[in-house]
């Protein structure tokens, strides 16, 4: 059995040609202080392949005009490219309809849209919103603002020492006042993959809608919003090999139609007079003003690129990187891994005894290794583990085993400096 498994892994590893993929990313050729760049800060932002850069150049050099407005050639070309991008994103997350894909400036913007469009309309005094300890600040603060405005209450799902949500506690939080659930798909600080499908089903059985923050899931796993049956799903383009300033809110059409607009302005209206404004249909109702047209088209090219490699292949390669790094780090004296969930994706958060994460980060940088250090915009997670901050290596499909080795040897030199 073991021999078969090993053989299988070897075959799949060779099928995934990481060196060929790395050649698609110009930035990965950089040297930092004479050392090859080892970019392990992908959970913060990923890098862009040449195909996406080329698409942006093509758009700016031969397709750009404002969309949804004029009848001239460029406006029609730009509108069509923008709507093509929406269809690409729809297919990428398996949404039922393209009008369920709203372009936002990113995950934060998408969550704020739901807070203003859904929350401010439907959540009232005394209502309860369930969030989890793992949430990024972007899925905490908007709901706190809403709770304060409405007199609603936030209830928080705890985690265990491995960084896994306590599902029994989650279920116990529901009562007749529960109106909304905000839930992270994959933890940016710990890498935990949450059982969102099961949690959504539980909430739906009680008539409660669920928003999933998928910022860290979409780059690493195949995501099917219909299979998850989530009501809202938010993610960012720049963590998905796309440009910054673009992201997506998926929402079920009926819910989106029932919501009030978030931003008012051009494009989101059917007709305007000073007596009454009629709002446009979805998705346009939620895309006021000129959107990030180029960025949306770039993101479309990014999901084409990722789909050509295959999200299953990406998940498998990243799983191998994570296993390899975890196995080595586990045996290092004085290094503690935070987040040891059974189901994890692409993130390795750690502390080095006696060395502050900022010092770890500065010294790793000296070896060309880029990691994130800090609280990862997830202070409740840090408080749960009683640390002010961690160092975090986060992998992408273009990372190699040799880069894991560079990380591990970098941590050894940090320990030497502070010995």
């Amino acid at each position, binding site marked *: 059995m073991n021999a078969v498994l090993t053989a299988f892994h070897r075959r799949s590893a060779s099928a995934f040609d990481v060196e060929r993929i790395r050649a698609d990313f110009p930035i990965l050729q950089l040297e*930092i*202080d004479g050392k090859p760049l080892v970019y392990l800060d992908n959970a913060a932002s990923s890098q862009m392949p040449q195909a996406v850069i080329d698409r942006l150049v093509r758009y700016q050099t031969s397709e750009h005009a404002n969309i949804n407005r004029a009848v001239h050639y460029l406006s029609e070309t730009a509108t069509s490219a923008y709507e093509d991008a929406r269809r690409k994103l729809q297919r990428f997350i398996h949404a039922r309809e393209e009008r369920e894909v709203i372009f936002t400036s990113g995950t934060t913007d998408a969550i704020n849209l739901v807070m203003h469009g859904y929350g401010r309309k439907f959540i009232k005094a005394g209502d309860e919103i369930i969030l989890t300890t793992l949430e990024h600040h972007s899925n905490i603060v908007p709901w706190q603002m809403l709770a304060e405005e409405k007199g609603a209450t936030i209830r928080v799902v705890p985690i265990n020492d491995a960084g896994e949500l306590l599902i029994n506690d989650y279920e116990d939080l529901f009562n007749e006042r529960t109106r909304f659930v905000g839930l992270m798909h994959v933890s940016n600080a710990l890498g935990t993959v949450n059982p969102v499908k099961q949690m959504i089903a539980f909430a739906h059985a009680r008539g409660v809608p669920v928003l999933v923050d998928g910022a860290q899931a979409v780059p690493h796993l195949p995501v099917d919003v219909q299979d998850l049956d989530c009501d809202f799903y938010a993610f960012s383009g720049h963590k998905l090999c796309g440009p910054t300033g673009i992201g997506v809110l998926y929402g079920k059409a009926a819910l989106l139609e029932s919501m009030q607009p978030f931003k008012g302005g051009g494009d989101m209206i059917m007709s305007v007079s000073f007596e009454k404004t009629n709002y446009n249909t979805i998705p346009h109702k939620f895309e006021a003003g000129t959107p990030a047209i180029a960025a949306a088209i770039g993101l479309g090219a990014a999901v084409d690129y990722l789909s050509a490699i295959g999200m299953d292949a990406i998940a498998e390669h990243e799983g191998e990187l994570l296993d390899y790094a975890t196995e080595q780090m586990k045996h290092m004296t004085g290094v503690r891994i935070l987040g040891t969930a059974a189901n994890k994706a692409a993130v390795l958060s750690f502390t080095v005894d006696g*060395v*502050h*994460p*900022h*010092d770890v980060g*500065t*010294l790793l*940088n*000296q070896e060309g290794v880029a990691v994130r*250090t*800090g*609280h990862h915009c997830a*202070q409740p997670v*840090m408080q749960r583990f009683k640390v*002010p*901050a961690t160092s975090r290596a986060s992998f992408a499909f273009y990372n190699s085993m040799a880069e894991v080795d560079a990380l591990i040897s970098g941590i050894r030199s940090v320990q030497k*400096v*502070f010995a």
Partner: protein
Amino acid sequence: MADYRALYQEVILDHNKKPRNYGTLEQASHHAVGHNPLCGDHISVALDLSRDPESVECINGIAFQGESCAICKASASMMTVAVKGKTRADAETLIQEFLAMATGKLDLDRPNHIGRLAVFAGVRDLPTRVKCAILPWHTLHAAFNSVATASTEAAQDPMHAPIGNA
């Protein structure tokens, strides 16, 4: 590009490992807590300030404690050594010189009072670490003025600038 190792010199590593004047001060007349919201680090500085016969304010005692990185802790430790026994005016001058040095605005070839603190000159090439080195100095400044808390992000903070300019 700078050699980052230059920053992690023996003297900084030593002060990080064995911080001087670490703890609380029994007869503190002034006190302030400084926060670096970027990393959650915090440093508290307690002062025993008194006036000598000529009515000049002197630092009779100083102590610090808190959670921080090596750069911040060593900076705090060396700061306490540097200002202990000094007049408030001399300490204020040193604060200004240190802040200027950390942001690359001090000409170390011209007369100054920096002395051994020159080991921190390298942070000017590491914009994200400047805040670590200057937090204790801001906190000392806040303690003199009995401001309750200092922050490397506060609006009135002279260092409150985009990190690239810091």
